């Protein structure tokens, strides 16, 4: 044996190695079942539009659950899906919140465009001032405003989406009550629904100029010839009221809890319209319990009290203003939910004494929580009944969000939960999901679509979508 033989034998050994063929696993079957995805239309509110971290921008629109669904439908004879994105030069749309880090006390420093704050970040010793400079955004504002009240909201106008009606018709802020002019029997509310294009700048940007102020959402979506639809509406019929601490705003006709009669009328009209009286396939999603989102869970009575006691060890309780007329101010209990925006207020000592309580609109007191949950259950019953009536699938988002709030969801060796910042699923506003959260939601839709239509649409890998980016 010498090196010459080695040279001779190694190629032979290498040849044997070539037999190590790459194994192949069959790709999972993709099948549309009895559904027709050639023209998929998504209707809904901010959750459908892809709203994230307090704003609507291209990065959110691109990872909205309808965009993710359309991408999976495309593998099963799905047609083109047009998302109402902003021009590249205006890609930041309405702008959004930015995250600057966690303070030494663990509180996040989150700033809206134009805001600034001074804080000492974890791992540092000196306070710094952070400013979210609006010049860093590529906004899509035109500089004009929507018509002034009472016929409009006076909000800043967003650049219109200029091509034909898109496939994602999600409108941030819209409720069933504001979407359908036949929903309410109160003329002022019905009129406001008809004039909604002058009230909501996200709706206005989707509308042709001639329709602004005259075309309600139901009429608008009825122009689209869908072969398949998703509808996730109704959240704002409870959420608008809830996020304002259970306080209706006198100037906003849609700021109260929507009554069941109006909701039923409006919701049935919307589903009837988009499903063409039950002849077009689709799925509807119901309303999650609002108390499960970080907006209401990130700031707890216990954490606020602990903060007070750091300043004053004798601090007895957290005092809140409630909607009750008999006890307008009382010590908070764990059943009262303090909202996320209250964090900056309590940091200045508000709520530490009965004479300086946390204002009513920053607290969802226990009675309001109960009222909202009762109404959510009622509205979800209407949604379920309507789904049966028009023979479409029902995505039980309420159960799903409860599951996540209770135990989180493990995906590909990551744990995700409803926690603020660290939970991966909720964006900086504490209400809207991250891109990863939207991917998880898309997978829930896919489950129900597959079950309802005998389809095999493949789920996506949520960990390929961004959670919160940490500075």
């Amino acid at each position: 044996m010498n090196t010459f033989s080695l040279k001779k034998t190694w190629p032979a050994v290498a040849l044997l190695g070539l037999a190590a063929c790459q194994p192949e696993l069959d790709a999972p079957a993709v099948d549309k079942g009895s559904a027709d995805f050639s023209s998929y239309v998504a209707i809904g509110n901010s959750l459908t539009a892809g709203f994230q971290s307090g704003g609507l921008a291209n990065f959110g629109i691109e990872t909205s659950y309808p965009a993710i669904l359309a991408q999976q439908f495309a593998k099963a004879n799905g047609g083109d899906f047009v998302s109402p994105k902003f021009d590249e030069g205006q890609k930041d749309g309405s702008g959004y919140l930015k995250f600057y880090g966690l303070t030494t006390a663990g509180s996040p420093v989150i700033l809206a465009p134009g805001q600034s704050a001074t804080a000492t970040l974890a791992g540092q010793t000196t306070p710094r001032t952070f400013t979210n400079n609006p010049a860093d955004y590529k906004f899509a504002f035109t500089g004009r405003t929507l018509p002034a009240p009472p016929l409009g909201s006076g909000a800043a106008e967003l650049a219109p989406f200029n091509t034909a009606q898109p496939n994602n018709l999600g409108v941030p802020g819209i409720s069933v009550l504001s979407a359908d002019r036949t929903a309410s029997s109160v003329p002022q509310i019905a009129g406001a629904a008809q004039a909604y294009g002058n009230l909501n700048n996200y709706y206005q940007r989707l509308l042709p100029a001639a329709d602004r102020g005259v075309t309600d959402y139901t009429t608008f979506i009825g122009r689209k010839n869908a072969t398949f639809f998703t509808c996730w509406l109704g959240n704002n019929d409870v959420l608008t009221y809830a996020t304002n601490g259970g306080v209706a705003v006198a100037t906003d006709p849609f700021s109260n809890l929507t009554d069941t009669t109006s909701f039923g009328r409006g919701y049935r009209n919307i589903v009837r319209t988009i499903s063409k009286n039950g002849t077009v396939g689709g799925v509807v999603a119901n309303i999650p319990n609002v108390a499960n989102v970080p907006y209401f869970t990130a700031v707890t009575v216990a954490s606020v009290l602990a903060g007070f006691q750091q300043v004053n060890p004798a601090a007895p309780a957290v005092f809140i203003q409630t909607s009750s007329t008999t006890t307008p101010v009382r010590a908070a209990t764990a059943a009262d939910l303090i909202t996320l925006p209250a964090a900056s207020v309590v940091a200045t000592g508000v709520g530490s004494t009965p004479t300086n309580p946390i204002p009513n609109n920053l607290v969802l007191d226990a009675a309001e929580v109960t009222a909202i949950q009762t109404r959510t259950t009622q509205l979800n019953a209407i949604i379920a009944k309507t789904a049966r009536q028009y023979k479409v699938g029902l995505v039980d988002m309420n159960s799903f969000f409860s599951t996540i709030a209770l135990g989180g969801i493990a995906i590909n060796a990551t744990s995700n939960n409803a926690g603020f910042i660290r939970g991966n699923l909720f964006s900086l506003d504490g209400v809207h999901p991250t891109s990863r959260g939207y991917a998880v939601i898309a997978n829930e839709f896919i489950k129900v679509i597959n079950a309802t239509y005998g389809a095999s649409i493949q789920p996506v890998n949520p960990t390929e979508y961004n959670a919160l980016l940490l500075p």
Partner: protein
Amino acid sequence: MTFKSLLLVGGALLTGTAASAGGYQVTLAGIKNNGMGGVGVGLSLDQAAMFYNPGALAMVKERGVQLGANATLARQAFRAENGSVQRELQNNTTTPFSLFAGFGPAEGKFRAGIAIYTPFGNKLQYADGWEGRFALTQIDLKAIYVQPTFSYAISDKLSIGAGLTYLALGSVNLQRDVPAQNADGQFASIELDGDAERKFGFNAGVFFKPSEKLSVGISYRSKIDAQVKDGDVTFRNLSATATPGFQATKFAATLPLPATTSIGIGVMPTEKLTIGLDVNFVEWSAYENLTFDFNAPVNGSPTSVSKRYYEDALTFRIGGQYQITSGLTVRAGGAYDNSPVKDGYITPETPDSDRVTGTLGASYKFGEKFGVDLSTQFVNLKKRTQTQAELLSNGTTDRVAGTYKTSVVVPGIGLNYTF
């Protein structure tokens, strides 16, 4: 070629191993045995008996040195339950090696020897961005045993032997991504790198050859707990916000290198034909958890415990050799290996499954003293799927749901010199 240059060849081949027996065990010692399905406990072929059955060494007539090297070429396909792209390992080749040197008086009753081999090991590198990146991106596990051996023939039919198994080198390098993204959207990663403490175990065996046509053997190799006490922890791409939660710099962990009991039978119907049958019993149940103890909390906890719950496993082997001419011997064999990994407990570092192995081999003698051995093993791991539902019910969501399919080819070459 001198003994010294044989060693140099071995050094150039480096060390490291990959999937070739259940779990992370590697049964690649003698190249002759490799060609015969890995049998050897009931045979007295050559100096590699030190690995298979030290009791048989005294029955090996020749004194000699043999050096063996294998190349493991693993190919794997993976499809995640969420996500339909097929993922494949980054191709890499590991080279388990072995060295056996036996000495003793020409006509004496005993033989002594020294063996160096790699009974455990594992090296895998997954494709960038694969679904299981938060469980594992790459692993390199090495264990090299050095075994001084003594074997004694009580009679011309019965011999016994024992060796000290010395874990001379044990090392582990594990890397995975951390599900925290920095401002650029990059995921952070963690690397654990450590060397095991040097430790002793033993092996022992009995060999009985009642006739020219039959031999039987039994052997045992004890467990060694490979213990890393002061491994290094390195984080990369951590954002400033996440950094306070990831302050660990050192870790400790223990990985059992389990005990193996084997029995084997050798049948020699003619002088030219040898057939062997082996059964290995590996006490994998020693591997319950993989626990890392950190010197500072990692994402909130100073320990990380991952369930393994391996089960003891059996391997059945059969193989034979036939001497065609005075110089040429050919071999064939096969093995069936029961995976120690239960359903729902498959991890990316050991994506194990029941495996079927077919082997081929040949030897050629150049004159009286030199010989070359060649072998190839074709290892086919059964397709194996675990679902997210299984992971949830087992509490093993630290790994990824999906389907694995692996095949491995292990060509090997050996050089032997007898004196």
